[in-house]
């Protein structure tokens, strides 16, 4: 057997060439938050929602500075005005009683005596033989075959009562007038209907009073003046919708953001205490949290609102905030406790403890920052539910007291006139929906970006 000869030279003991490239990182190391931000930026929906949220905040905070209109001020000339309506008004002479004459060319049947305007509509009709009374009705919609006559204006008795002047709450729009002639027994003899397009007019004195002109000499009869601008229209009391939406946003967003902030903070404190201390105290604390969870949420919100009723001049925002915080914290505290229990067993906590870290330091430096992602996601999802709660309570009349506007109470007012002036419902409803949608999508994005375990399988 041949001996294998191995000859070693000094060169064999030279260190191998070390490749520097392997050890250097190809990219700079990213912190947790930098990584999360990059992930979030890649999510178009979440970023769009973030912009919407920022826009809403600007609308709320800066809006009233730009659009400086009192949300409680009534513009009685422009009630329930849809957005984008014609603002011009023609100056007319002060009101003069009507003697029954007609300036318009004579015609048959139900007709107008003068050009109809928002001061008065003067109707004339031919006497019906044998008629003992005439009833005049006014409707906002076409009377149609089933004779939806609308508002009964007057019952005129006597065969010669063939004229009527309507001055009741007229606004510039189309009305459908109907006249029903009856004989002495009440049997219907004749029915006529007329569509009337009312134009907006104002007297010079009124225009001066409203501040639309500087002096009476500025205008003459027949001139046109511009009524105050309401970009989003007005509500049923003639209040500016845009201003109310802005001030309503203050209430809705304040409750929507402040309440979750407070109860998440409390929940974090409570949950981390329970999770960190552990043992009997943890059991007792969590038992209490379970008890609060079991309480029916909205019933207790309503009870709380009744018990701490709203005094004169108060808006009732504070009781709602307190009730929300008192009832909503347990979910966060449970979540945080679970996280803390998990983190407590991690190696780095023990390492930190070995290095002499005190309990308080451990919680503040290691545990809470490591649960921050979960907390932030909870916070974002808590905002829509708080906004919904406020809207729900205001809708059933248990929320913010009038005249303080909130989106929920505006919906409550708007739903009553949904058929005639839908904009009073649409705008606040749209704002609630967009806000909730934006926070939901942002929450989804944050969850995907911040928490790998909760990352949805999309």
């Amino acid at each position: 057997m041949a001996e294998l000869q191995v000859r070693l030279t000094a060169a064999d003991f030279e260190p191998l060439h070390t490749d520097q490239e392997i050890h250097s990182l190809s990219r700079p190391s990213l912190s947790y938050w930098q990584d999360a931000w990059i992930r979030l930026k890649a999510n178009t929906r979440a970023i769009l929602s973030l912009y919407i949220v920022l826009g809403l905040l600007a609308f709320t905070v800066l809006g009233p500075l730009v659009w400086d209109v009192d949300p409680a001020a009534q513009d009685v000339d422009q009630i329930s005005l849809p957005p984008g309506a014609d603002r011009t008004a023609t100056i007319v002479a002060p009101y003069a009683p009507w003697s029954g004459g007609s300036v318009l060319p004579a015609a048959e049947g139900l007709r107008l005596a003068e050009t109809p305007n928002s001061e008065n509509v003067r109707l004339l009709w031919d006497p019906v033989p044998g008629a003992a009374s005439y009833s005049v009705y006014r409707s906002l919609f076409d009377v149609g075959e089933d004779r939806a006559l609308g508002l009964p204006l007057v019952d005129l008795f006597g065969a010669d009562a063939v004229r009527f002047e309507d001055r009741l709450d007229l606004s510039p729009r189309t009305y459908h007038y109907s006249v029903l002639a009856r004989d002495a027994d009440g049997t219907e003899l004749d029915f006529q209907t007329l569509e009337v397009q009312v134009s907006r007019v104002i007297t010079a004195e009124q225009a001066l009073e409203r501040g639309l002109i500087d002096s009476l000499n500025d205008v003459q009869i027949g001139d046109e003046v511009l009524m105050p601008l309401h970009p989003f229209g007005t509500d049923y009391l003639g209040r500016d919708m845009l201003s109310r939406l802005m001030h309503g946003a203050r209430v809705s967003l304040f409750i929507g953001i402040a309440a979750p902030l407070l109860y998440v903070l409390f929940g974090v404190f409570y949950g981390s205490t329970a999770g960190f201390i552990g043992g009997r105290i943890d059991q007792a604390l969590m038992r209490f949290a379970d008890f609060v969870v079991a309480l029916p949420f909205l019933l207790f919100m309503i009870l709380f609102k009744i018990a701490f009723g709203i005094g004169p001049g108060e808006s009732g925002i504070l009781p709602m905030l307190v009730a929300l915080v008192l009832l909503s914290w347990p979910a966060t505290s449970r979540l945080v406790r679970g996280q803390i229990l998990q983190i407590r067993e991690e190696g780095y906590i023990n390492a930190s403890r070995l290095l002499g870290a005190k309990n308080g330091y451990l919680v503040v430096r290691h545990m809470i920052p490591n649960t921050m992602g979960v907390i932030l996601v909870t916070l974002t999802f808590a905002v829509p539910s708080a906004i919904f709660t406020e809207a729900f309570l205001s809708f059933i009349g248990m929320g913010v007291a009038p005249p303080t506007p909130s989106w929920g109470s505006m919906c409550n007012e708007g739903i009553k006139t949904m058929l005639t002036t839908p904009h009073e419902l649409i705008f606040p409803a749209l704002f609630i929906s967009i806000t909730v949608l934006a926070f939901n999508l942002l929450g989804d994005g944050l969850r995907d970006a911040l928490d790998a375990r909760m990352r949805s399988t999309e």
Partner: protein
Amino acid sequence: MWRYTLKRLIQGIITIWFIATATFFAMHNVPGDPLINDRSVTEDIRANLEAKYGLNRPTHEQYLIYMGNILRGDFGISFTQKNRMVNDIIREHFPVSAILGILAVVFAGLGGVLWGALTALYRNRLPDVIIMFLVILGISVPSFVVAAIAQLTLVNLNDLFGFSVLPVAGWGTLWHMLVPSMVLGLGTMAYLTRLMRSSMLEIVNSDFIRTAKAKGLPPTRIFTTHQLRNAILPVITVLGPSIAAITTGGFVVELVFAIPGLGRYFVQAVQQLDYTVIMGTTVFYGAFLVFMVIVVDLLYGWIDPRVRLE
């Protein structure tokens, strides 16, 4: 199991006791006076009324009487609707709310499972995108707005066809129940759809599905017996809280659709400060919700034996 049931029941009873007590003291704390609504109440009348309703006794005595009455199941007489027992109001109007609520739960449950499964099947394809868009919309629009839109649509639909396709409001026939229960269940359905979708997608990647595929089971069989049955479990967990959401959501839907349910009476009582009705319905609703959550939790342990009831 029985120990757990007993424990949950005792906890539930304590919660209901707390609800009743909190209701009593909340009502006592209300600013104003229950008898102030009636004009020209002289001292004698006031004294008589107070004696009739027991308002002249000390608070703790009133509390004991109130608790005793609740234990006997007597909630008293309405303050605003003369000679009407709160028990009668509940007996008469709760079934209406219950039918509406059950229909809504069925609608939400079936719809949520169906749509959720569908979106998971067609993941990232057109049906998924459309349904998930609608789901996000359903979660973001408040129920009263949905109710208003639904009502408006019905009005226009009836106008379009020239006859009453579906009634716009009111109660009585199955046709009256259809749209309100759908509106009531919509938010929950949207929530359940999301939940069902993510739980379906999670299960697709699990080992037993791969095994089932490997041994050659037909895809429909895998879908129905393995995927769907397992994915449904999380949906059942949230059914308890969903029942609470649907019950309280009923307040608004009943209001908008003019349905004579207990929710509408509760809201009216709250607005008119009808003390006994508020107290009675709150305790009743509270007990109902606490009980429902317990039932759902027990049901969950029965459906999924893996969940240990402790």
